[in-house]
């Protein structure tokens, strides 16, 4: 495939899958409430249109530059994460350290989400920003170790090498903990499901509290895009990339990405919100040792299978 077409294609896929996640989430919500599903209820377009024409509200003394930078940042980070996900044989950014690149993009979210909270110059939004940082301190290290395990198994930080290393056996078989922790961390950096405390309803929307109009649209779309990017990255890392019988590579990759995405959407409203200060201990006392154990087991497998 032409490298030139790859970036627009990836962006289209990102938008399409984000829409799928919105519709699936609404369908689940309607079903949980026992209501009948009408197409109008499922469609995100009326809300998109409303947010696009809505006049921006503002606060007394916002730091508009930082606020807007943070607001646009979520979508940008999600798109940049996709740059190192191989589609078929090609990849947008042929970076030998793709896994670290993904890590760098999720760290950018520390700054962006906090800036959204700070820029609004509103107490609830700011508390949301601080909650995100507190949560980030608890999930970032587990995420790094969860990313380390497939890299150790493939002896490379190149995402394509990681896919190639799974020719015999998908990584998820030998590193289920790393896979589960990775999904957990995707939810955490996307303010998703149990990790929505920074945007919690107890804070009147937290970091999203004061955003309106197109700013709000960017934030909400950014959140869905981040979940999509996380799901898309889980596939080459743990689920063998495009490997699969009969169908072409890209079909399998799309199907797997869709499956991981739907899993994240289903889990979104099934789990209670975790309090950031409680999750800190869970992260450090429970998850960090578990992921370290995972890396140890992976290393032992690599040693045992070395020729």
């Amino acid at each position: 495939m032409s490298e030139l077409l790859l970036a627009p294609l990836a962006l289209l896929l990102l938008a399409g899958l984000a829409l799928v996640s919105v519709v699936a989430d609404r369908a689940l919500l309607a079903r949980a409430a026992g209501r009948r599903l009408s197409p109008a209820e499922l469609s995100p377009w009326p809300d998109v249109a409303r947010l696009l024409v809505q006049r921006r509200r503002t606060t007394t003394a916002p730091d508009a530059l930082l606020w807007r930078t943070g607001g646009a940042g979520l979508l940008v980070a999600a798109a940049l994460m996709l740059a190192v996900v191989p589609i078929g044989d090609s990849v947008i950014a042929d970076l030998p350290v793709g896994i670290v690149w993904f890590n760098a993009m999720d760290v950018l979210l520390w700054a962006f989400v906090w800036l959204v909270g700070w820029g609004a110059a509103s107490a609830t939004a700011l508390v949301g920003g601080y909650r995100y940082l507190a949560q980030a301190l608890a999930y970032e290290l587990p995420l790094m170790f969860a990313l380390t395990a497939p890299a150790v198994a493939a002896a490379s930080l190149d995402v394509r090498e990681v896919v190639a290393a799974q020719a015999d056996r998908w990584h998820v078989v030998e590193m289920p903990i790393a896979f589960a922790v990775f999904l957990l961390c995707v939810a955490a950096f996307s303010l998703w499901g149990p990790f929505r405390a920074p945007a919690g309803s107890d804070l009147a929307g937290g970091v999203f509290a004061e955003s309106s109009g197109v700013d709000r649209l960017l934030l909400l779309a950014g959140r869905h895009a981040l979940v999509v990017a996380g799901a898309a990255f889980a596939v080459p890392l743990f689920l063998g990339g495009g490997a699969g019988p009969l169908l072409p590579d890209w079909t399998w990759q799309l199907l797997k990405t869709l499956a991981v995405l739907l899993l994240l959407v289903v889990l979104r409203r099934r789990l209670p919100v975790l309090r950031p200060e409680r999750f800190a201990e869970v992260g450090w006392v429970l998850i960090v040792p578990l992921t370290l154990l995972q890396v140890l087991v992976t290393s032992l497998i690599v040693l045992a299978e070395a020729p």
Partner: protein
Amino acid sequence: MTSDVVTTTLFVLLALVAVGFGFLVFRVDSMARATFALAVSFVAVGGILLLLDLDYLGVVVVVMMVMEMAIMAVFMIAYMMNPAGLMPMSMYHDKSRAMSVAVGTFVVLAGGALLVDWPERQGSPPADVTEQVGLGIMGSHMLVMMGIGAVILTTIVSALVLASARSRYDRLGDDLKARPARDPIRGGVGR
């Protein structure tokens, strides 16, 4: 040739961003803006490292610096005067001397890099440059350094234990039997 032009243009752009935003740190009034101006400056430095084909180093600089700046913003705002930038504030101390030292250092280093008659490369680089540099620097001292690493880590942990206001006796009582532990904020594991 074109790739040379692109690389040079990118380098000049990133260098200007790095220096410009670094300078902005001292020009803006708000702690949040100062902190993230510094973060942008470091990200640009990471970009320059990427241009030098130091992929890992470049990306890691971005990871470390953005993380560090996000946490630093919290402390800057907590401890500095004029946190929200609502009042004008100068970050300079001893303005003229600080400025001359900073600009002087930059001129000396940059001038040195440009003016020194760098030697031509003799021979060719080894296959695994990273490993060779590691061996060149550390060589036979590797075991000692690994030992020192463990000692440093132990020192950090002991210092934290000594500095902590609350010990296990505060948490668990004199006979260490109080359950649940008496913590100001309960943790999530239920220790």
